[in-house]
């Protein structure tokens, strides 16, 4: 798995928020006020007891600190890297009201879990197991499924995770910008979940036919399939060579299949994934990268800090414009023909690559083929419409606790 770490990609995508050194972490941890009923903990979808883990970090009780995090969130390591902390824990920090920078909770959490994983002792304390051992299948191996599977395994249940792709981890492995979470770190966390007793089967896609057999094999199923394919633009020219949807583009460079981008790239859309794709295009060598959005900056769905980040990467924004047609020559993209939605003026942006990033479809095929007797749970992007990793982890944990409470704790 480690051969994923392509040195060229690693060089071009260094950590946006680098790891703390030991002393840095100590100084930062000691800034924490240790609030009562801390707002950061309330703001966290998995309710990590932030002051508690930071307190333990400050006293160099590293294992205690990590276990405090993992007790609330088994995927705390990836969350520490990918969470939009500006709108979660760090956004809620009381320091904002004191004209001071918030505590760097995300980086402290990463430090605690990096130390934990490096220690070689990643065994978790045992939890009370249920009255009977359940057999549970988790479909998809993204954060929601891994969280659900890990929580159930910790309580003594037998869990199998099914993943259609060659590697587990879902968007953590294939879809998060490399400078936030690299695939190696994502896979380390997958191995950690496996170490809790979870079986992960990759390259096994669950179709409706296979799904119907689950009723006989499992007591409950958790669906953590995420969203469906990326939406198409629905304009002429989408089949040209050089049109690559944002998630495929990101997955390709993360797995080392793509090491460069052409000189001129246009990203259509203005969400967080669009920013990730545009920034990646810059880092892969594109000189001109623009993001095209039919509305204005006020309506863009990317977080404010992502917008700022994209500008720092050198991405240009074209507001109030939508694509009409992708122009091509000899089967390859040569430009994007667009129209201003306010004035009706048409214009063309010369480019060699167009990256549609206008969201993913909802894929509920399996849900519709559900069998009556099978207890089905679902969470993550599939049910919440596409939020953050931490929301998926919270969903997975809630589902696990519900499964355990309904079937594991009572006698059948």
């Amino acid at each position, binding site marked *: 798995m480690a051969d994923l770490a392509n040195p060229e990609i690693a060089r071009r995508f260094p950590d946006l928020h680098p790891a703390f050194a030991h002393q840095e972490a100590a100084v930062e941890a*000691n800034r924490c006020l240790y*609030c*009562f009923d801390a707002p950061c903990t309330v703001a966290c979808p998995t309710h990590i007891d932030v002051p508690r883990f930071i307190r333990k970090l*400050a006293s160099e009780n590293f294992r205690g600190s990590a276990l405090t995090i993992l007790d609330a969130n088994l995927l705390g390591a990836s969350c520490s890297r990918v969470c939009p902390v500006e709108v979660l824990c760090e956004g809620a920090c*009381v320091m*904002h*009201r004191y004209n001071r920078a918030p505590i760097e909770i995300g980086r402290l959490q990463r430090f605690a879990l990096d130390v934990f994983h490096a220690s070689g002792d990643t065994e978790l304390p045992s939890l009370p197991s249920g009255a009977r051992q359940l057999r549970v299948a988790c479909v998809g191996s993204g954060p929601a499924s891994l969280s659900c599977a890990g929580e159930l395994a910790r309580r003594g249940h037998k869990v199998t995770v099914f993943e259609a792709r060659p590697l587990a981890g879902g968007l953590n492995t294939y879809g998060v910008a490399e400078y936030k979470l690299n695939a190696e770190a994502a896979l380390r966390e997958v191995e950690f979940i496996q170490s809790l007793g979870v079986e992960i089967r990759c390259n096994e896609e669950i179709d409706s036919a296979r799904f119907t057999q689950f009723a006989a094999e499992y007591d409950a199923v958790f669906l953590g399939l995420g969203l469906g394919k990326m939406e198409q633009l629905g304009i002429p020219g989408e089949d040209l060579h050089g049109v690559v949807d944002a998630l495929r583009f990101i997955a390709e460079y993360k797995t080392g299949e793509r090491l460069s981008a052409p000189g001129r790239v246009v990203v259509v859309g203005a969400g967080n994934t669009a920013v990730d794709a545009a920034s990646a295009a810059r880092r892969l060598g594109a000189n001109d990268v623009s993001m095209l959005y039919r509305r204005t900056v006020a309506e863009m769905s990317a977080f404010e800090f992502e917008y700022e980040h994209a500008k720092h990467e050198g991405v240009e924004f074209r507001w109030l414009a939508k694509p009409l047609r992708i122009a091509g020559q000899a089967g390859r993209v040569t430009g994007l023909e667009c129209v201003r939605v306010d004035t009706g003026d048409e214009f063309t942006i010369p480019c060699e690559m167009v990256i549609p990033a206008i969201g993913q479809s909802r894929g509920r095929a399996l849900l519709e083929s559900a069998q009556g007797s099978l207890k089905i749970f679902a969470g993550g992007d599939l049910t919440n*419409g596409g939020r953050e990793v931490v*929301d998926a982890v*919270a969903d997975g944990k809630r589902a696990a606790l519900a499964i355990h409470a309904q079937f594991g704790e009572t006698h059948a």
Partner: protein
Amino acid sequence: MPDLSVNFAGIKSPNPFWLASGPPANCGEQVMRAFDAGWGGAVWKTLGEPIINVCSRYSSVDLNGQRMMGLNNIELISDRPLAVNLREIAEVKRRYPKHAVIASLMVESKRESWQEIVKQSEDAGADGLELNFGCPHGMSERGMGSAVGQVPEYTQMITEWVREIARTPVLVKLTPNISDIRVAARAARRGGAHGVSAINTINSITGIDLDTLRPRPDVGGLSSHGGYCGPAVKPIALNMVQQIGADADARQPVSGIGGVSSWRDAAEFILLGCGTVQVCTAAMHYGFRIVEDLADGLDNWMREKGFATLEDFRGLSLPKVVEWKNLDLNFKVVARIHEDKCIGCDLCYTACRDGAHQCIHLDRGKRPDASRITTTPIPKLDGPMADNRVTPLHRIPRVDEAECVGCNLCALVCPVENCITMDRVENGLAFQSWEQRNI
């Protein structure tokens, strides 16, 4: 422009800031650089029979990332030949005639030994003598240092020997490693001392390395108790200085020592009656240049307060320290939380509830429903985010003033300046102390 010059027990110096006897005053080159930097005097690293030091020698206590809150040492007196030290003292005095050079002395408890080294020091040109009856480590095992300071009769006797021949003022450096500093100060005075220096270092073990299980400082796997100093010991030193100043039989000129790092510390020692202050740890931590702020800061504070000389404020706080029985039982303050400053950390709530008198409450607003599911706020799905710059009412605590005992704890833990103030409550009751109530 305020005048910082002092005449302390007959020793004159351009300002009250002296290097304490220790590593920063180990040799002439250091002392001369210190004088160039602005120090008014220096108490030379203790002279005596040359010793051999161990390696390593120092260890410290850090607090929350702040280095050297307290420093511990197991270094002995000067390890340089006596003749070299004396020659350098003479040279320093020749070049810096207006600065104070005090010879710190420690020899075996024999009259001839003490009188010989006194004679040699004064012949070299020392402006005064400081008898080191304070060092708690190493030398005390050989019957010197704090072994003398812990026995009032020895303190008095050796002070008398020195006074028999001394031509310069004699200071006695006291050890804090005793139960009552006044007893030692009285003995020094009975022996004829012109003043005392207080305090020397406090017996300490700063800590143990949890990997090797070796105490610090590590001398080949073993350690020994050392002398503790630095900012951490200041409150102990201030108390001992006050004890000496408030006792009729112990009262005498005091050179204050113990954690002086800034002009504020210096002002506090002088307000409790000290004539000069001595500094070691801060100079070891930051170098001689810190004297610039000591002098400049004290000068500016004196200007602001209208004090022309050190004598104008020396000892002014001494009468304000009384025995508990003389405090006013009817004086009442209560905590007031200024909600415009409150950031909602609620540390005061926890502190009052767990550590004090359960009179701070969180009942001013409806708290969020703990059972609701929290998700990442996505503008597209959830609308604009709440403004976190305003503290929500439910996080602003309320003080039950009727129950508040005015202990200060909430104001002490509050991280925001002036957010919690302890306000006087007029209750119309006249002054009454425990002493008066018991009549």
